[in-house]
């Protein structure tokens, strides 16, 4: 099971300085009067700049995706990042998957026996149904659905808890 997830650190360290540099050059050297002439226009310019930045970030984020692969062998959960070792966890120490699902997009946070959120992933760039993810773990440990709720803003929150820890 392979998920493509944005490497935020690499992504932000690459894209934000470039966007900042572009904004600096435009403001400083294009020297367009209305940007600095009127505070309201400047605020609008700021908003526009932010929206453009967010649009570029969203557009480019897939390019900065990293493949994380989940494997279970001999009671161990192995997560590799671009095929190199990332996390190893005894499967019986996997306590809970906290899932938020909305319009077929889901976010999963995984917790270990010390209560630590050791890995988070989503299916924004990977077309794997949530049922497949649950089945993947359920084949090795018994997950029980708990604390199901429907937030006011929409979507569904549900905890899949390792039966051992209930």
């Amino acid at each position, binding site marked *: 099971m392979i998920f493509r997830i944005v490497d935020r650190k690499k992504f932000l360290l690459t894209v934000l300085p470039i966007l900042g540099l572009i*904004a*600096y050059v435009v*403001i*400083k050297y294009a*020297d*367009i*009067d*209305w*940007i*600095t*002439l009127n505070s309201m226009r*400047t*605020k609008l*310019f*700021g*908003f526009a*700049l*932010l929206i453009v930045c967010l649009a570029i970030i969203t557009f480019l984020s897939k390019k900065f995706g990293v493949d994380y692969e989940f494997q279970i062998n001999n009671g161990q959960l192995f997560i590799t990042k671009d095929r190199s070792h990332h996390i190893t966890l005894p499967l019986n120490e996997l*306590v*809970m998957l*906290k899932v938020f699902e909305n319009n077929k997009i889901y976010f999963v946070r995984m*917790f270990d*026996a*010390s*209560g630590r959120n050791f890995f988070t992933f989503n299916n924004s760039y990977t077309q794997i149904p949530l049922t497949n993810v649950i089945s993947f773990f359920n084949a090795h440990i018994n997950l029980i659905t708990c*604390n199901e709720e429907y937030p006011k803003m929409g979507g569904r929150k549900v*905890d899949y*808890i390792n039966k051992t*820890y*209930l």
Partner: protein
Amino acid sequence: MNVVNQINASQKSKKTKIILIAVLAFVVLMGIMILPFFINPKAFYDEKDGKLYFGSKELTGINPSEFKTIDYNVAIDCTRVYYNGKPVDFIDRKTFKNLTREFYADKNGLYYEKTSLYAKNKLVPLEGSYDKATFHSLGYQTTLFADKTSLYVIDAFSNPPLKKIEVSGLDVATLQSLHNNWLKDKAKVYFEVWGKIKVCPEIDAASFEVLSYSVAKDKNKVYYITRNLKTKTKDATETDDYAVLEGADAPTFRMVNEKYYRDKNQDWTISKKGEKVEYNAPEGRKANTPAPVNEANDMAEKARQMAEKAAGKN
């Protein structure tokens, strides 16, 4: 507490973290908005240590004592006009004058500050079929201009900014701006609001005079600006308009000061809602009660009448 409860409890405490992230995002947003001011601050004309500067750029070859700023971007000395610190060679300095904000004139015509989304602002000649030699302002209190044949209004937000105003029967040669909204030519009085002019046929031009910002009169009637002013018979308006002040005796109506007026019959208090009004009626004139124009004065008047009644009973 088992580990599941521990995880759920820690997730609830993350709300504080989310609030902190939201505050941080807000601060970043504000930072982005004001960033241009720090990267490229607005340049102004300034004099330091006997030297002239526009922003951080020093202006050389200019005597600071002869230098005078007209607007944020426009300045003059004895020989030249400057825009953004650079001399403008196509403007005649001797006949250069500032018509209104962002609009200028010399013997060759009009100029205005043209703004652009994609380029720097420029001072450019204003195209149009106006007569350059006779083009003039009708006064500092109006945005109207005239040449020998036509009346114009300058609107910085329209394109082109100079608009011709057509009013049938208006005699431009004798037209004069009296005060704020009032215009007069040899035959008629006109009421102007932001370049829109209406003829006032009921007003006698020969005897018309403006008493104050709010009040004017002719030989027959007294008129007041109805914006934010109401009477017992007429509501206030949100935009500038005028109405007849009913009951006022025009021939004897005169201004005491901006708020107080008097005619042969009574004293008048004319002020906008919320303005503090204090007035002592002259002795022997109490029978002719003042006729307040606005709501606040209505209440003051009622209070005064009640006090008089109470005094009469005693």
